[in-house]
């Protein structure tokens, strides 16, 4: 298995090269120099200042040299300074990343917690009314645009009913709250965003889980388990479930980019101070260093997520963990 892990980590190298290439290319697609934007936004910037900026960003050198420069900084995760406020890009991202990560992790946990049982029910009661209802519910969740349901829910729960706060992650007088109150305040602010993430993500997991369980329940070793006189519960939860969960891990890894993309919309609508919103703001302001930085970080997170999923799978499946004797 060590072999497998080493091979897997080595395969990351071409990916990292590709990520650095693409994030570099994307920004340099801009017609004209990237610094033109700042200078055009702020006519007060003098010619000397412009030349200085060009030098700092190495924009006066040929493209290949610029790329080498970029790679050197990429490795150190140094994405330069923001055009907007001059702060280090990595600082700005560091501030916002935990928020986005926490929301995503909580959402994933909830999706698993609800989606896996839904999938199991669907497989055990295949083609029953319950199964059909679950399929319908899940199909709907999959097709609803997140920004639409965000508006509708905001209208109902924040404006009409006034139960939940609409924007931001914390209330104005957050600092004066006790720990419990702080926790409740954040929960109230994040309730709708997390709900929307979970509602949309349930579709994939529960459907896949259902399919995986159905396939597993038809395997020969399940017949053996029945022939052994094991109870239905033991067969489903011990023999079938663990086998069905294996491919779900991979699926989770694959859904990370989708969740990060979704963050852009949800965080913007609900004004949550996360990385997605930072990205959106930077795009609107054409703050290229930040854009490049978040693009690269997003890709690296996805890559790491997939790596984690694959390694976990290798540990969980004895057929990969132990080779044949």
């Amino acid at each position, binding site marked *: 298995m060590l072999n497998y892990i080493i091979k897997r980590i080595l395969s990351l190298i071409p990916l990292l090269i*590709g990520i650095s290439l693409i994030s570099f290319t994307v920004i340099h697609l*801009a017609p004209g120099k990237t610094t033109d934007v700042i200078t055009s936004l702020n006519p007060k910037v003098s010619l000397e200042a412009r030349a200085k900026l060009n030098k700092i960003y190495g924009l006066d050198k040929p493209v290949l040299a610029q790329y080498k420069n970029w790679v050197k900084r990429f490795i150190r995760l140094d994405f330069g300074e923001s055009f907007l406020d001059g702060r280090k890009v990595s600082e700005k991202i560091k501030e916002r990343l935990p928020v986005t990560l926490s929301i995503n992790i909580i959402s994933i946990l909830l999706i698993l917690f609800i989606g896996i049982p839904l999938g199991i029910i669907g497989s055990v009661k295949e083609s029953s009314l319950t199964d059909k209802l679950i399929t319908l519910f899940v199909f709907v969740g999959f097709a609803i645009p997140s920004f*639409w349901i965000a508006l509708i829910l905001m209208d109902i729960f924040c404006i009409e009913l006034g139960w939940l706060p609409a924007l931001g992650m914390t209330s104005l007088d957050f600092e004066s709250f006790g720990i419990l109150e702080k926790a409740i305040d954040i929960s109230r602010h994040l309730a709708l965003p997390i709900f929307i993430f979970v509602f949309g993500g349930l579709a994939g997991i529960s459907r896949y889980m259902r399919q995986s369980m159905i396939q597993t329940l038809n395997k020969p070793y399940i017949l053996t388990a029945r022939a052994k006189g094991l109870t239905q519960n033991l067969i489903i939860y011990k023999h079938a479930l663990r086998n069905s969960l294996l491919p779900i891990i991979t699926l989770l890894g694959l859904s990370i980019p989708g969740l990060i993309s979704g963050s852009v919309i949800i965080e913007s609508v609900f004004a949550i101070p996360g990385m997605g919103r930072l990205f959106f703001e930077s795009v609107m302001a054409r703050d290229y260093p930040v854009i490049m930085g978040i693009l690269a970080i997003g890709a690296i997170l996805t890559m790491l997520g997939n790596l984690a999923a694959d390694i976990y799978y290798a540990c969980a499946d004895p057929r990969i963990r132990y080779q044949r004797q």
Partner: protein
Amino acid sequence: MKELLNNKPLFIGILLVAFMFLVAVFAPLISVYEYDHINSESILQPPSVKHILGTDQLGRDLFSRMVYGARISLSVGIIAVGISVLIGVILGAIAGFYGGIIDKIIIILIDIMLCFPVLFLILSIVAILEPNIYNIMIIIGLTSWMGQARLVRAEILSLKEREFILVEKVLGASNFRIIFSHLIPNAMGPVLVSAILGIAGAILVESSLSFLGLGIQPPTPSWGNILADAKSSLGIAWWLSVFPGLTIFITIISYNLVGEGLKKYLK
């Protein structure tokens, strides 16, 4: 044919897709008002006989705007998917057929592209170039070909070894001919399903972009940017948020129904 009609979800899906298509094509005939006709006297009117779906904050008729929005969304969806299928099929076929290092390179390219969260990449590029309809179509196409490529590659890998291909090789057919006349046509089944589901995806992406203000720019109506306007009238004009979103939702469901229905049919 009969099986197609018996499959209720598929049938409903096809009807809805056709309906939306007709609405888009006959937009100028159906819409009562011009989509950018500003009427300061009927601002934010709820649905009535005069304006079936109500008006927005500039007095524009929502129904007319949405009907033109259908044109935008559908054309973006179809062309973007067309581009992604073109790229995906070609790359996937080359990878599957030639194998070896070419295959490895294409696979790595696909994996790299898949690392980027879709909206991140698209938003970056749209920000750099200007957000107009043509750019959006091309960018969405350029960032969603990976699924098609993988499908085609898998199909071709399995078809490659089958007898009819070996027969063609023996008969001396050129590689080009084998790929284009024999392999690709046989691999098109899953690609068709993927393309149909892809149209739904592309429409969703375009709506999201327009909602964020980086897609279709006003005054040209897109379901997404109508919803963006609706945000400022939240709580005051429910029709502005409900109808455009509902339309996007129904459109996506209809393509999903068709796609899933065809999937079962192809099996």
